[in-house]
């Protein structure tokens, strides 16, 4: 096996050209899943009847489904049913005009929401009961107590887990290449198809993924530092 630095830099350029695709997939998925996951966690924390049992059941089942399997199932359903659905809603676009990335978003967001919700729920459980009671006792409503007292205290507890989730999501975006979406990995491998030498492409993709995760992690750690100023440093 030989290594050509020329091919490596070609692949690196290809990978970087598709970085925005991965970036968008990651950030949109993260933000939307944080919102959905947070909502799931809060509903389960407050034990809203019916809905919380349903969500508990759904999260447990869905967490056991590998992202790749979910992705190909949704893709298949999308491919076979698009025409009927489009006709029903009077959408004139044909399936070839639709970007398959929406299937990628759908499966990424669904699986991320489930795992984020568990992280946030764990953090919620770490907050003492007396914090709720103190909020209620000074006359705050349930909602005011939630977003003025509980959520600010939740952030520093949830961040380490969420950083971990974020890195998981970055890695998850790699799988959407399976349904024909070009992202970092695809971009890095495009030049390899000409040279028949794949090592450079894989290494270039690894490097870009690693750098991307590193930058996002560093940014998130900054937020962590800022949000923990009220906690005493004992360690």
């Amino acid at each position, binding site marked *: 096996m030989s290594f050509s630095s020329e091919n490596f830099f070609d692949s690196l350029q290809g990978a970087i050209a598709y970085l925005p695709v991965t970036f968008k997939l990651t950030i949109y998925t993260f933000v939307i899943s944080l919102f959905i996951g947070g909502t799931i966690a809060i509903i389960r924390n407050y034990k809203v009847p019916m809905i919380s049992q349903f969500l508990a059941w759904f999260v447990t089942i869905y967490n056991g489904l590998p992202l790749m399997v979910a992705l190909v199932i949704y893709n298949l359903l999308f491919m076979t049913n698009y025409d009927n659905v489009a006709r029903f809603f009077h959408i004139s676009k044909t399936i070839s005009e639709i970007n398959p990335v929406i299937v990628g978003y759908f499966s990424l967001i669904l699986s991320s929401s489930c795992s984020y919700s568990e992280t946030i729920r764990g953090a919620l459980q770490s907050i003492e009961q*007396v914090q709720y009671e103190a909020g209620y006792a000074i006359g705050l409503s349930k909602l005011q107590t939630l977003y003025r007292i509980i959520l600010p205290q939740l952030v520093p507890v949830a961040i380490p887990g969420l950083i971990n989730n974020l890195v998981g999501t970055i890695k998850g975006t790699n799988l959407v290449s399976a349904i024909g979406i070009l992202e970092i990995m695809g971009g890095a491998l495009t030049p390899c198809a000409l040279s028949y030498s794949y090592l450079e492409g894989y290494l270039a993709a690894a490097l870009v993924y690693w750098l991307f995760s590193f930058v996002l992690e560093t940014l998130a750690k900054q937020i962590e530092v800022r949000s923990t100023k009220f906690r005493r440093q004992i360690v």
Partner: protein
Amino acid sequence: MIEITHLKKSFGKQEVLKDVSFKIQKGQVVTILGPSGSGKTTFLRCINFLERAEEGELRIGDTRINLRKASRKEILNVRRRTAFVFQNYGLFYHKTALQNVMEGLVVVQKIPKDEARKRAEAALEWVGLSNRKDFYPSQLSGGQQQRVGIARAVALNPEVILFDEPTSALDPEWVGETLDVIKKVAKKGITMIIVTHEMSFAEEVSDKVVFMDGGSVVEEGTPKEIFTNPKEERTKKFLARIIPQDMYYI
């Protein structure tokens, strides 16, 4: 005036409060004594709906509220007219002492921030903590945290302050400073209901002492009546066991 009538509460099959009635006049200080498990803390928590009673009525001023069926609005109304001091302080960890006191003033009472800050600073000075106003709870001692808790309650200017064993989580050396602050609150003429195990403090500060056991009021009267001349056998037994040990601290 605050009056609670026929309060009943149970946790599962365990009956914690069996038909408790209670009355306190404006400006009075009432202490509730009793062994652990007698229901005194639950009683206090039922008043501002931290626990939901199964039966009973609350009269606060001119308002009558059914303790079982109270609506969200009624609950909020009661909570806004009362304040609560917790056994384990209940300070908001992410807020400084000053912000802890300001929270209710700004968010609940809608007082402009500058005005609220002045009031909060005054309240903290009053409990002797103006030099600690920008400290987070984690940077304060237990006694200091509890004094912030009391400042937070007093600053809200409530019709009644409920104290739930305010000193039982404290180190002996911090009990004194906290009790001194509570005495200061009493002198201000604020209506207070105090659940405590500090007998000498109860004797000194209260207008009325209520002795509870097994979920009902066994005996009530002036401190003098209860401490020097208790009528019920159960009260005598309880005091006989508690007082000598308590004398030790004085």
